[in-house]
């Protein structure tokens, strides 16, 4: 077993809004080993992005806060660190790629300075060295003629190139953990594949662990070692990627897999999960998926199921699986 790089336990993130306190992330546990890729999947609004922002300690400070839990990066709890100590980790040992390459680069600063910026802070290198490093990084992420690109502004680059620049920015300090929040959502499919290939290649070279946040199960299948499925701020299923696709246990995961287009079936309409993610201010009393669940039972509306280990390395939050397991044993 490789060492744990990041351990999140009992993380609860809350937002204070006019309507009350929203628990966007409600008690989740994550473990990422060195060099591993963990995927977090779920619909919009299920707390994936808030989880990543919590790990980076980048929650909007006025309204969002980590109410409980620990985020241990190499054993150090980041929640209880000062701003300066967190900054030393951020960008240096733990970096993040954002969803929107079009808006994640500062429009008035040249590419070279943006790429080298974190290196200049964390590695304390000079302007000249930084430029050389930026050129080297841009070449590494597959940008041709990086000597010219460093002098350009973001609006002169295409979306795919900007996402490559974002990756170069994130990887410049050789972080141990890279958090990618929907890194390919805003890109064309062909570019998506290139970007994913690039991330995998860099991961192999540098041994970086990746936390991949996505709603695209195709990306999960291609990239991840293990997968966490989130629903309404909770983990509903966690397993390795093969098992998830071969034998999903939670009805929600099944619903997600069923709504993928299948080439072999040629159905007219895609299957979908009826209903919507519940309003976080009015969560159901029992299982949070119960209102949309096709195999709902009476107890699902009364009690909250626990996240239980159903098989070796497979966890699921569902009464049905618990019953099955009890029946077997």
């Amino acid at each position, binding site marked *: 077993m490789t060492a744990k790089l990041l351990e999140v336990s009992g993380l609860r993130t809350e937002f204070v809004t006019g309507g009350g306190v929203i628990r966007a992330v409600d008690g989740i546990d994550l473990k990422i080993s060195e060099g591993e890729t963990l995927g977090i999947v779920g619909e919009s609004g299920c707390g994936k992005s808030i989880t990543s922002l919590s790990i*980076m300690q*980048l929650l909007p400070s*006025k309204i969002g806060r980590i109410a409980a839990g620990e985020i241990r990066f190499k054993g150090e709890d980041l929640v209880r660190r000062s701003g300066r100590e967190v*900054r*030393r*980790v*951020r*960008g*240096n040992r733990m*970096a*993040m790629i*954002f969803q*929107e390459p*079009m*808006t*994640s*680069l*500062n*429009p*008035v*600063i040249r590419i070279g300075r943006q790429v080298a*910026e*974190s290196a200049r*802070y*964390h590695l304390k290198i000079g302007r000249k060295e930084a430029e050389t490093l930026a050129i080297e990084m841009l070449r590494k992420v597959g940008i041709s*003629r990086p000597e*010219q*690109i460093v*002098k*350009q502004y973001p*609006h*002169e*680059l*295409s*979306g*795919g*190139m*900007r996402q490559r620049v*974002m990756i170069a*920015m*994130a990887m410049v300090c050789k972080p141990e953990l890279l958090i990618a929040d929907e890194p390919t959502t805003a890109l*064309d499919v*062909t*570019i998506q594949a290139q970007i994913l290939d690039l991330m995998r290649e860099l991961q192999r070279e540098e041994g970086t662990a990746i936390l991949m946040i996505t709603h695209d199960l195709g990306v999960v299948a291609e990239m991840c070692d293990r997968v966490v499925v989130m629903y309404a701020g909770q983990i509903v299923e966690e397993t390795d990627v093969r098992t998830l696709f071969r034998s999903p246990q939670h009805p929600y995961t099944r619903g997600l897999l069923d709504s993928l287009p299948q080439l072999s079936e040629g159905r007219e309409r895609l299957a979908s999960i009826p209903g919507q993610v519940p309003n976080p201010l009015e969560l159901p009393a029992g299982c949070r998926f119960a209102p949309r669940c096709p195999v709902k039972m009476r107890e699902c509306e009364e009690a909250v199921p626990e996240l239980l280990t159903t098989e070796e390395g497979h966890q699921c939050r569902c009464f049905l699986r618990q019953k099955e397991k009890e029946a077997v044993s």
Partner: protein
Amino acid sequence: MSETATTLVPNPVPQPSARADLRKRQTFARLLLKNRLAVLGLSFIVIWTLLAVIAPWVSPYEPTLTDTASKLQSPNAAHWFGTDNFGRDVLSRVLYGARISIWTGLIAVAISLCIGVPLGGIAAYYGGRLGSVIMRLMDILLAFPSLVLSMAIAASIGAGLTSAMIAVGIVGIPEFARLMYGQTISLKEKEYIEASRAIGVKDNVILFRHILPNALAPLLVQATLGMGFAILTASSLSFLGLGVKPPIAEWGAMISEGREYIISGQWWLVTFPGLGIATSILGFNLLGDGLRDILDPRLRSGK
């Protein structure tokens, strides 16, 4: 714009940056030249600045040279703008007055910028109680009529050119603070600002090296408009005797000294410095309005 269209191409060959830069500058210059009023404004400013710089060489007389024998002459071949009650050449005094006025405008706007922009940026970026205190102080400054406030400040530091500059500068602070406040409030939510936080950049660096450059365009417009305001207010202070001390040539002071002679028909004493004030302010206002038109849509579509 064309930039956004090219971003859809998977692997476009980017323009060599030198050429792209040049093209961008050319478009800016072309847009500016297409705006007739802005060109008019710019030419007023250029002419006055040039005259101010070369005043010692082109002025026909010393601005403070009195010649009681030829006092209160109407415009003639020897004195194009006539002479005043001490026989001083009005043309020379107007030219030297341009130096003082433009200099006052520059210093006053610099004071407003250097204090107002950081205050507004800090108030917006950190927000909370600090932000409220700063912005309420700005509201207090704004609540006074600007001339009354600058008079009060100038009078309390003591009359003189320096105190006039400081007074006008202080009065201009809230405008810049509010502008920067609004810009920062919207810019700090941008993803690229969050991205720079995610790579561990310090707050003050984010504020001044990432947010400020994005807010430059409106600040530039405000600074240009502020120049006009500063020249006017400084002249008003001099007119009221709170600015420069005689015999230094300054437009406001010249009007003040010459106003007694309007009734007796010596119109040239006030008309020429008055035209100086009017054209220079008009120049800055026209250029400021033009810049606003040119810079705003470009910045929006540039993203």
